[in-house]
């Protein structure tokens, strides 16, 4: 009798569970109270490969996908605070919060976005006071070693792998997750947010109306340094506008990277020789070329920052601004609806391209705070955010905010400017994979040599170049001084670290086997790369 009752009870429980788990077509409302674990359907964009008349065809369609929602009774209401510095995307983040809550009704997203400079000042103070956001956006001084820096600061915690799907890592291209870059002891701390082929500096943006006013064809951009020079002279001679809008101080990097990258490298460190390279004759050649524009008054005058420089170009005060892949979204945020924007590859030296921009593992940007009490929920959000066909990816790309390595960019990007950016990057192969010291020598992640050298004077190269550009001064002496000081500090630190037991040496940062800087570093070469001697005297 007792056994019969138990069996009946078990059957009843199974019946209730089966009924509860049946797919239901219901409208998901934020305010709906879910009393039992159940499945609801949410809208997803799905790509399938189907066979049509013997050919495999890729089809994209919108479907209702069942998603299991735990009962509210089982869930504590949680508020996740997220912060980043993309103010122009604030409305989008509000939508993200609403969409996420449809699937996770117990989690409320509070997304604050500040101006970049303000953000960089505010976030450290929040950490200092123990009031940091649960998820935050950050790029360190050495972008590749941002995770190592943040770990050193005790700012970050790993993602909760218990709530990550098995195929989580498959969302990214192979090799996107590396120990020392975004993984520690097999635990992921971050993920590549923007791709490293398209995303980054190096594009030439033009105001086509200024080109037209100067009698130039706006669709035939200058392709070489000489052509750019001629175009600039024509614009200044035929219009009231200046040619280039160049921000100075640390913002000079926006103009410097594409010019230097086409001649040699956009890095102030020469990864072929393993030394700081601002005194290299190719870097000096790029500087002299740029200085010629300043000396001949082809540049908007003044010690301007990036915001002024961008506005000057958008308002027709200048014809050309060099900037990153994010600029179409930035220009869209300006109230210049008539801006006819051109996006082109940067001009190359007259005898051909002889350098490349650095494509590195530098796009790990979102982290979970070590101070967060909601690591699991934060991981759930990041998992939701990085779904290849999810709301975040599709809308982020559709609105032209940037590129994403975990989604199909060409499928979802709708913004004309961003499509041009993708086209320029892929057609011209602006970026190539540089060798990564951390991959060659794992101890490089613990080394302070680069940091110490760069700490001598922050942003030294850019600030010193800005001063020389504004005042028409010779830069060679200062360049030699900067390179000598940085290299001395770099080598001294390496020596001290090797003596202290790190398997480190200048060999970790010098890749002479990488002969052609316009071509990617072949990862097979890591196997034959010369390592420092085990006693640290290499």
């Amino acid at each position: 009798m007792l056994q019969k009752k138990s069996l009946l009870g078990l059957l009843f429980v199974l019946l209730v569970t089966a009924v509860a788990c049946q797919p239901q077509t219901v409208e998901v409302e934020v305010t709906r109270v879910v009393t039992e674990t159940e499945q609801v359907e949410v809208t997803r964009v799905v790509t399938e490969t189907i066979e049509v008349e013997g050919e495999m065809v890729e089809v994209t369609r919108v479907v209702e996908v069942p998603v299991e929602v735990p009962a509210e009774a089982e869930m504590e209401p949680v508020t996740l605070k997220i912060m980043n510095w993309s103010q122009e995307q604030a409305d989008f983040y509000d939508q993200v919060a609403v969409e996420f809550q449809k699937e996770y009704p117990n989690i409320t997203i509070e997304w604050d976005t500040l101006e970049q400079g303000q953000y960089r000042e505010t976030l450290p103070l929040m950490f200092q006071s123990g009031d940091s956001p649960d998820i935050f956006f950050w790029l360190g001084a050495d972008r590749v070693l941002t995770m190592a820096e943040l770990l050193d600061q005790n700012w970050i915690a790993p993602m909760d792998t218990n709530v990550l799907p098995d195929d989580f890592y498959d969302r990214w291209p192979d090799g996107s997750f590396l120990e020392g870059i975004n993984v520690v002891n097999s635990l992921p701390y971050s993920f590549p947010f923007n791709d490293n082929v398209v995303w980054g500096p190096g594009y030439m943006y033009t105001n086509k109306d200024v080109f037209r006013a100067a009698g130039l064809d706006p669709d035939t951009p200058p392709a070489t340094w000489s052509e750019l020079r001629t175009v600039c002279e024509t614009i200044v001679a035929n219009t009231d506008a200046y040619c280039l809008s160049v921000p100075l101080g640390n913002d000079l990097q926006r103009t410097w990277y594409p010019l230097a990258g086409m001649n040699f490298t956009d890095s102030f460190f020469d990864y072929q020789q393993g030394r700081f390279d601002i005194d290299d004759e190719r870097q000096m050649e790029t500087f002299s070329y740029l200085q010629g524009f300043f000396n001949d008054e082809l540049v908007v005058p003044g010690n301007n920052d990036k915001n002024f420089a961008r506005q000057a170009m958008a308002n027709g005060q200048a014809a050309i601004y060099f900037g990153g892949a994010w600029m179409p979204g930035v220009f869209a945020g300006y109230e210049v609806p008539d801006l006819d924007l051109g996006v082109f590859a940067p001009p190359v030296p007259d005898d051909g391209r002889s350098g490349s921009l650095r494509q590195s593992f530098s796009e790990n940007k979102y982290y979970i705070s070590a101070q967060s009490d909601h690591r699991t929920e934060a991981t759930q959000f990041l998992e939701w955010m990085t779904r290849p066909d999810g709301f975040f990816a599709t809308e982020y790309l559709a609105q032209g905010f940037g590129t994403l390595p975990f989604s199909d960019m060409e499928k979802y990007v709708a913004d004309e400017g961003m499509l041009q950016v993708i086209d320029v990057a892929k057609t011209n192969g602006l970026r190539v994979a540089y060798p990564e010291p951390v991959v060659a020598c794992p101890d490089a992640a613990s080394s302070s040599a680069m940091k110490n050298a760069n700490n001598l004077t922050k942003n030294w190269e850019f600030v010193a170049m800005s001063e020389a550009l504004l005042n028409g001064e010779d830069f060679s002496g200062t360049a030699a001084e900067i390179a000598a000081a940085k290299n001395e500090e770099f080598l001294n630190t390496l020596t001290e670290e090797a003596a202290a037991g790190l398997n480190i040496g200048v060999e970790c940062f010098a890749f002479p086997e990488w002969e052609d800087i316009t071509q990617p570093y072949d990862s097979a070469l890591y196997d034959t790369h010369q390592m420092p001697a085990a006693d640290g005297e290499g």
Partner: protein
Amino acid sequence: MTTISAAQKRNSRRAKKKTAVPYSKQVRGKDYFWVYLFLTPFVVLYLGFTIWPLFATVIYSFFEWDGIKPLEDFVGLENFVTIAKDPLFWLSFRNTLVFALVNTAVKIPLSLLMAILLTRKWLWGKRFFRTVYFAPLVIPVAMAGLIFSLLLHPANGAVNDMLVSAGLVAKPIDFLGDERLALLSLILVSVWQIFGQYMIYWMAALQNVPEDLYEAAELDGANEWAKLIYVTLPVIKPVAVVIVFLAFVNALRVFGLVVTMTGGGPGFQTYVVPYFIYTQALVDFPFRYGYASAAAVLFGATVLLAVMLQGHFVRRSGE
């Protein structure tokens, strides 16, 4: 003669001590309670917001610390040694002193002159001029910096437009980009903003000069210049020392205008110590709070020394 005089003074002081009722006897019983009760909020706030930050800054300067991690990496005097060899710190130091000295040298005589003019009985519209000169002080420093950045801009600035239109210059001047002009531009904007405050100080000092001294000087045939040199300045001299001292110390704290107008540029040419400290501690990642604290301590000690020397010489000149 001297010995007798000193003895007389000592006796006089003893006599005063015997006759005067000490404070401890003036305040009795519950009065102590109320005195300390009313003193407590000030003392607590003073300890918390003045003494403790000063003390903490000295402590931090002996650590390699980013402002966030636990304070555990004691490095002794290493930060001070590094600072002593940091050319950017010494450039900032030099710029700060130049800024403070020139700023003080310009604003003090200018504000005194305006104060003298605005205390003339014959001047019409004194209240209007006082308001006009004082008004810049109520504009936030950041706002003033942004406004002047635009006014002085070589491409769009109104100042350059006027100079070029008037034929005074052939092409626009890059006031904030030229390394010879940037610091001077900052100084002049700072003077424009602050000199109304010192004008008010001077006016208060001038109003304390007894009118009968001027009348006596007039009877002796003194003109306005002679009255200024032989009556006004000697009478206000004690206050003047304090005003100059305040002006110099306040000028050493220049920060907001540098942030909004030049960002330390062109290059590093307008870096001042407060801006140097700010960038080291809070702008350039990874942060160097300990290093910035060492810079603050070193700069503070140097300024304190300068102020003590100044006080010493002022006392000697008084004697």
